[in-house]
């Protein structure tokens, strides 16, 4: 059984694994962060956010000395499953840390609850 937890990430039950729902790549155990199963890039945000104007620091784009763009890619298909904007070197965010026992109880024991496959 697969449950969509984000736009791109499912959790496989009862195996409790993160799965990319675009290409079915296994991104690791669900009791850890899916980010540990991603490829991660540290980018200059100005590669994405256009500089508007002539000032070096104040130009409607990010100052790369203050903030970096961290992109998380599925290693199977290259889908960008999440982004973070962090000062250089700041720890990443373990954003979704589910109570997997409760999650499994809810999804595998609730009568009539549609699985992801059913919804598709």
């Amino acid at each position, binding site marked *: 059984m697969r449950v969509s937890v984000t736009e791109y990430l499912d959790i496989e039950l009862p195996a409790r694994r993160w799965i990319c729902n675009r290409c079915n790549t296994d991104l690791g155990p669900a009791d850890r962060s899916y980010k540990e199963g991603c490829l991660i890039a540290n980018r200059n945000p100005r590669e994405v956010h*256009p500089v508007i104007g002539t000032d070096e620091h104040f130009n409607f784009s990010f100052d790369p000395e203050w903030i970096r763009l961290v992109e998380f890619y599925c290693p199977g298909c290259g889908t960008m499953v999440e982004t973070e904007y962090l000062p250089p070197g700041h720890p990443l965010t373990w*954003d979704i840390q589910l109570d997997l026992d409760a999650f499994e109880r809810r999804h595998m024991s609730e009568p009539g609850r549609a699985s992801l496959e059913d919804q598709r």
Partner: protein
Amino acid sequence: MGDLMGNIRLHDGFVYDRHAYELAPGRDPELLAGGIEPPSDLELKGMEALSAVELEVFQHKITSIVEEAREVYMALSISEGIITGDMNTSVFTAEGDPAVVATGIFFHTLLNYPQVKYILKYYRDDPTVGLHDGDVYFFNDPTCGGVHTFDMFVSAPIFHNDVLIGWAEVGGHQGECGSMSPGGFSPTATTRWEEGLHVGALRIGDNWELRQDILDFFLNSVRNPFVFASDLKARVATCKRIRDRVLREVERRGEAEVAGGLRKILAVSADLAMQRISQLNDGVYRSVIFNDGVGLESGLIRLPTTVVKEGDRLTVINQGVSPENNMGPQHCTWHLMRASMGVYLFTYFFRGLAPNIGLLEPIRTLVEGPSVANCGAEVAHGEGTTISAMNVQNLHVIGSKMLFDSPFKLSVSAPFSRNVMIYVYAGINSYGYRAANFTGTQNLAGQGARFDMDGEHASGFYWASVTDSGEVEESDMRLPMVTLARVIDKDIHGFGKFRGGTPSVEISAAPVSGCDLTTRGASDRLSHNPGIFGGYSGPPNPRFVVKKVDVFSQLSQRTDEVELSQYSLAKEHPLSGEYQFSYSSQPTEHFDYGDLFVHGVGGGGGYGDVLERDPDDVMDDLRENVISFDVARNVYRVVFDQDTLTVDGPGTQAERELARKERLKRGKPFAEFIAEWQKLRPSDDKLLYYGDWPEPNAPGYSKPFWGLFS
């Protein structure tokens, strides 16, 4: 996992569930941090008598009363904030809990009641003060339960045959309050003593008549006495309208049913909130956001949010917050951190439920203090909303992650724009009186992208999605500036599978007599508008003005077309003048005739991977002039004909496959990434006000994820 809160370790030496300041004349933190008061005997009698259906009818009636009052208040006022909806009108329970609120500003729904509780606790039985039918009270002190000194409120008890049934309360963003900068916002204030009037709870009228001595005191304390007096009377008149309407309901239903009905509304709301929370996945959810200034100076500030969801309860924790500083007004109070959450919760998370303080009953609020998020009483508080909004943005990201796998997926979205920039104009207006305030452009921010569609352009005000942007012709009359254009601008929103909404940017100029300008803001080099699920953030939003430009003369002499947009002005400098891009917190400065102001409030974040955006939608973005050719090509990786805006399908598919290959080549496995990443650190000059790096209150922290203390 089980016992999720048991795994959370709070730091020693801080307070979390209350304010970082103590009892003082006019304020009682216990009244601020307490929950809904227990029902009185009268209320219990009424609660029992009201069936579920009757309660619905009653709630509808009281809602219609405050909605009517909202229209009355806006129609009677002459301040920009009130006219455009930065306000609220309310009925409180007899014990002072806000039961039914028309708004405006969602956090007003959850504030401005502690002063009423203070009156009940300290003044009602005090023979020098007392409490009587027709009393009118004023308050604006942020440490006593308000927002900032320029949000001003009036309340009045609703008595029937000497029985206290409830309270009428009316107020909003008045602006000028005698602070060091005209118009309220004082970005360089460092103590509360520079922020003008501080009134905890003051009886300003008896029998619905204002006391002249007190009115004179107020009018002699502010720069715009005409506006102040006019709007104060509007608040009092609106309060009286609410009181009269509620008394009609008392005459129809009796005292117990009305008093008990108000209290039962809160009890039912609490139950509904718990029912909704119980349908979400248990777990620990986190989000973090940063600011790049403190007021007087630039500097990194951190505001992390952890939400623990267990059963039908939420605990919202702000731990590891940057410490209090004495360098500006960006300090928040515990109660404002809590109340501000209503902006997200009421609009999205609890969508469909009546907004009132009952919805917060199942939510525990833990804010580390003293810190910028739970500060002491002496620092300046005027921009506490900058800090509380950072928490709200985190909460929005977290909420979307909680709601995705739930029956409430419709609310999944990236946050609304909160790259705040406020231009406060001061001077003599076209009517000839002194005015100091901002324009309705505040209310034209971009919405965050939603899970199934783009965010709306120029959608509303961050704090209040139902505000209006006002009429520029009217604001030109009321404020000392002239609006030249409002433009849905280019490359100023978050990109994604669904893009964020773009703001409307206001281009305006100083009139013949010139004017003073104070600017306040945040997120000049970074952003408070995160994307979600791979969407990009809305971009930063610094201050942008052009001096020595005399725009009126230049425009009258030019024969070619001059595009007045932020993008065009910043990129091409089409008018001669001094183009200034800067940090947004700036003290009051005089601008001469024809100087130009460029003012927007930022675009919403994007949703999902840019490579999944429909190429035809990218062409629509180009047609609407909200993105540049560069973004279409280099971010969305669409191949198209620039003249016809026709998509090359196979070419786009190949280009996007190439983009994915580039990602796989650029990305590094977790361990390799962390090994390199942890060697990085912002330069020391950026960390002056941050606290210990990277965890402000945990020296030596070296984990790959923040917030893990065990």
